[in-house]
């Protein structure tokens, strides 16, 4: 079963990466970043079950702890990200990354 989960997680991660690179709406980009992190969570949990199946319960618990940490970090990142988006939207009335381009060479 491990392989199927890893493939699914790889596909989800790739969708996230593609979304960050191609989409122009900042909110959608944030959703794609969350997708990346949750794809990783899926593969960590799959590995965790795999190590549990091998009888290595310590390793399995490590994975669970890591996933919980990642969820907390993702929440903090989303909070800060949305705050920054709001402060930009108040000034410029746009969330399109193509139009947020004061800084360039």
């Amino acid at each position, binding site marked *: 079963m491990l392989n199927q989960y890893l493939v699914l997680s790889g596909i989800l991660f790739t969708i996230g990466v593609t979304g960050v690179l191609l989409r122009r709406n900042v909110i959608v980009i944030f959703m794609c970043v969350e997708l990346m992190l949750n794809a990783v969570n899926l593969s960590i949990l799959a590995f965790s079950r795999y190590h549990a199946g091998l009888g*290595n319960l310590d390793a399995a618990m490590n*994975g669970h702890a890591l996933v919980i*940490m990642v969820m907390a970090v993702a929440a903090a990142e989303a909070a800060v990200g949305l705050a920054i988006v709001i402060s930009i939207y108040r000034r410029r009335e746009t969330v399109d990354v193509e139009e947020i381009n004061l800084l360039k060479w």
Partner: protein
Amino acid sequence: MEGFLLKPIAPHLIVIAAGCLVLLMRAYGKKTSAGASGAVTLASLVLALAASVFLHGDAAKSAFSGMVVDDNFSLLVTVLVLFSGILCVMLSFDYLKRIGIAQAEFYSLVLFAVSGMMFLGSASDLVTVFLGVEIMSISIYVLVGFNRGRMESTEAALKYLILGAFASGFLLYGIAMIYGATGTTNIAQVAEFFKTHGPSQISPLFMVGLALLVIGFGFKIGAAPFHMWVPDVYQGAPTSITAFMATGVKAAGVAVVVRVLMFAFPESMDRWVPLIQLLAMVTMTVGNIAALTQKNLKRMLAYSSIAHAGYILVGLAAVYSQGFAEKAVSAVFFYLLAYTVMNIGAFAIMILLGRDSDEYENIDDYKGLAQRRPWAAFFLALFLLSLAGIPPTAGFAGKFYVFTAAMRAGFVALVIIGVLNSALSAYYYLRPLIIMYMSDPDADIVENTERRPALIVAIGVTAVLTLELGMGLLAYLAGGGSYYEMISGYLARVM
């Protein structure tokens, strides 16, 4: 053992407690001035510095089931990031007032960012590495966008946040794969796994994980080709935060790269050293070439910081030399220290010269500075010469140690590219110098003549250290004790 549980993270706890205290002082005492918050911040950073030095024992002590460790390596990182944090706060005092963002939250975020960096230094588990990176990064995202009235600032914050979170995704995926391949996230146990199972166990899963880790860290330290955020973010951020990012964040990032690669994967060195070598070459060249055409001093220093990340990576690749790994890592640490003092010095002069509405960023603004402000021009010249790597400054000594280490590892091509790059960089570092000394000032300039003691002290300290670290090279060549020898003496006991 249990009784000493908190001792390895006592300095971290001091910094975190001070961060909370600064926030509470603001919440409960509405009249608390930003200056008072700054003073508390400065005091707590100095206290943490003292605590980290005096509580440090010679033997490595780990705590929280091997999540953090207090060894000589972590001591060096802690001292470096606290030093950078102290200088950043000294730069911020008057600058924040001048641009109208003097708020207590700024200082508490600086403290939280510093605590994240300290955890990166003492991380002995990949989970701690991830948490340290995130504590540091999330605080810095907010600090970059702190000047909400200025559109560049919020834009920089958004760009940094998107790319930072993107990079964290890669970093985390790498950690997940290494966890999958070895069944542990503890750095010492990962190393143990490969020692017992031998090179045959280096599976594709592990190699992909390693590559993803390098990509994630590459983003964080601003190495090419993962550097596109650096110029925009450094230019848009408040100047004291730019100085902090270029030095503290970079030092912590490099430290964690060394910790993970050297302590967890020493067995697979022949796999990741070529990768680091390639990154070093590309990073140096891209940074220097892009810096040549810049007209904005802040943006030029941003590109130059990419180039300096490249020189640091040269030192990191040099760990390949058998038996001299700790010499190479000491060269990296020395370079980070030298870069911290000279770079913060240059940004401090920029802040010193800035006026109310004018950030004083364009290189043309420095016309005839030598006639108007001879001392400021002199110190800026010193820092720029040091960044260019001209003896007898810290920058030259740093490059000398790094390139010597790379020679010892037999990377002649890498050293040649590095030296050519240094020669190239002299062009853009010397251009502001010529403008300062050779052209006449515009007549209508109103000088900013406020008294700013904290800033002056910061400039003095960095200038003295720039010369002092540079002079240490003479002592080293004469066979006497130098800072470099001191650092490698510390590292020899953990590597």
